[in-house]
């Protein structure tokens, strides 16, 4: 009697397209996925535990290492949470600088998304192009804070340094070049029929399911749910800018891709607006050197390129946080992987992983 059975394929932790050290245990029936169980923790550094033995300010460099392709957002979220606890108002100029940096970082992060999606689908030229443009943004950051990935730029009460004189011309040059770059990607990737057919109608997540499973960020908006924290609960000075939140209709990989491409355009827009509105002035509020927030707890979340990045800090009035929890969007978004992959093919798992855009530094924390 002939009988067929499924087999298990360990995709990762060393695999070209699991974006780091994610292990996906695939149960396959031929090429069809029966189950895809993500298995993480290979990059667990115990950052939440480390926070309990560091002072509030000393934890900022560690936030860089969570979602290491959009560290500005991580800095911003953490600093705003602590500022909420101690009640500091940030100077105007610093607020604008924060917006400029986080939005530039969003573009950089989405460029990485685009590049990694392209190479996961086999178009390595797309990746090279994406990384090339990202380099321009990193050069800008390098100019401002002396680092290309781990910025530690945003601090309690402001930012660590004002922009140097050559920054604004360089940024303006980038902003004028950027639409042409974006257009190049659209012509190389978006218009490509193979890419379209690979992504369209694969990995569909319905709006209801997306909310239930806790998706946030572009992955949620691709399903048509209008939830962008920059709009619904504007933190910082986001209410002063005019931008659109692109929404998808179906919630498939294609929507998740297109939305991020559109978001890059919106972010460039926000940067241009912020640049024109930015006043002169100080960049740092007076914050005590030794920070002792009053006992209590705060949950604050911001819109990171990967979704809702939340910090929950419990203070006992001492110099170290009593408990610090990070709501990592990549971690929670990864829950949807299994049910989305079921019934699809191996090639689709790669596409779904790439469009969910989970980053292992953040997943494992």
């Amino acid at each position, binding site marked *: 009697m002939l009988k067929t059975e499924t087999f298990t394929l360990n995709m990762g932790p060393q695999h070209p397209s699991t974006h780091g050290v994610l292990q996906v245990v695939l149960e*396959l029936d031929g090429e069809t996925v029966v189950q895809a169980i993500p298995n993480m923790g290979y990059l667990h550094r115990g950052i939440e535990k480390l926070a309990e033995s560091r002072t509030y300010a000393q934890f900022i460099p560690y936030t860089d290492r969570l979602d290491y392709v959009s560290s500005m957002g991580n800095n911003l979220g953490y600093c705003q949470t602590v500022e909420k606890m101690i009640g500091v108002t940030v100077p105007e100029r610093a607020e604008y600088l924060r917006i400029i940096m986080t939005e530039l970082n969003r573009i950089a992060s989405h460029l990485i998304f685009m590049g990694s999606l392209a190479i996961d689908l*086999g*178009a390595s030229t797309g990746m090279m*192009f994406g990384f090339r443009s990202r380099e321009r943004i990193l050069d800008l950051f390098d100019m401002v804070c002396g680092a290309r990935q781990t910025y530690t730029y945003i601090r309690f009460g402001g930012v660590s340094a004002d922009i140097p004189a050559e920054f604004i011309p360089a940024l303006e040059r980038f902003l004028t070049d950027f639409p042409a770059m974006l257009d190049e990607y659209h012509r190389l990737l978006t218009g*490509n029929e*193979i890419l379209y057919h*690979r992504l369209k109608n694969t990995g569909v997540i319905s709006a209801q399911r997306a909310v239930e499973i806790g998706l946030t960020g572009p992955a949620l908006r691709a399903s048509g749910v209008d939830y962008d924290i920059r709009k619904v609960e504007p933190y910082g000075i986001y209410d002063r800018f005019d931008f659109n939140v692109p929404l998808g209709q179906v919630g498939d990989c294609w929507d998740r891709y297109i939305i991020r491409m559109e978001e890059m355009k919106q972010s460039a827009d926000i940067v241009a607006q912020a640049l024109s509105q930015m006043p002169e002035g100080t960049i740092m509020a007076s914050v005590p050197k030794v920070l002792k927030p009053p006992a209590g707890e705060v949950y604050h979340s911001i819109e990171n390129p990967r979704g809702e990045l939340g910090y929950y800090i419990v203070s006992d009035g001492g110099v170290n946080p009593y408990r610090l929890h990070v709501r990592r969007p990549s971690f929670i978004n990864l829950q949807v992987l299994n049910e989305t992959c079921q019934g699809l093919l*191996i*090639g689709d*798992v790669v596409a779904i992983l790439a469009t969910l855009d989970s980053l292992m530094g953040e997943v494992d924390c």
Partner: protein
Amino acid sequence: MQEITGLFNIAEILRGILGRFLPDPQLVDICMSLINIGAIFTIISLTAVVLVYAERKVSAFMQRRSGPNRVGPGGTLQTVADMVKLMAKEDIMPAGADRWMWMLAPILLFIPAAAVFVVFPFDNKVIFADLNIGVFYFIAMSSQSVLPFLMAGWASNNKYSLVGGMRTVAQMLSYEVPMVLSILGIVMLAGSMRMSTIVAAQQHTWFILLQPIAFVVYVITATAEINRAPFDLVEGESEIVAGPFTEYTGMRWALFFLAEYANLLAVSVIATTLFLGGWNGPWLPGWVWFFLKVGGMVFLFMWFRWTFPRLRIDQLMSFGWKVLLPLALLNIIVTGIGMYIYEFFS
């Protein structure tokens, strides 16, 4: 002075020299065969060296990088250095591998890749064996490469390899059919399967002008036959790591690599011979034209690879069976009717 530069004349001169030293004309023939075999192997191994370098340069240039430029002038010796490195590497056999099958696979893959070269007309009269079934021989030999892929995939005792091996079988078998059908139109027009006759028939009009659809179908299926992007599902590195080659190291892996580039050259040569008029061309000697055209085809395949994303397996299959096959069949019907009408009027 085309006669002196032609490859055939070089062979004739060589034959003349050998004839002076060897008494028996049969011995001269044997010697010439050995020289030919040597020439073919030189071409194949040189091809791999040149094409790997070319591919790296093309990919780099398309991605705005500068590519290898350290070893030798302009990095030209990079591939040689890589070959030396590969030879020096440890030969690792995975535990639980099917020993003999595992060792045979790369060699078996290389043999058909090399064997197809005997029917390629590099220049007027320069052909190792001008078989009267040349096209048929090419198709038969090149489809042999399915088996070694499956052997490698099965014997490696690795699931990625197995999936890759299975994909190869599905992909190569289903793209073989439209490929054969697209070539069939040419054979109908030329009225022969002999390579030299086909080239000679293109003295005035290249078959690409008469058979544009067949050319498109051929290029697509050829890309799939040699497992290059956008049809590189067999070794799609972001899905199944390296497919059947996952467990191979050192020279064994290099043999796979060699065969891959030999195949790339082979399909380019066939495209040149069948569609682009082979050695035909004005002013320049025939073999220069031939290699120029082959180079153009190789560049086209590389261009595809560094631009397109990969297809998914089900899309690949449905594209092969639902689009290419009907297209190729249609092309044959149209060709047949066209030939009938042409004969009717002339």
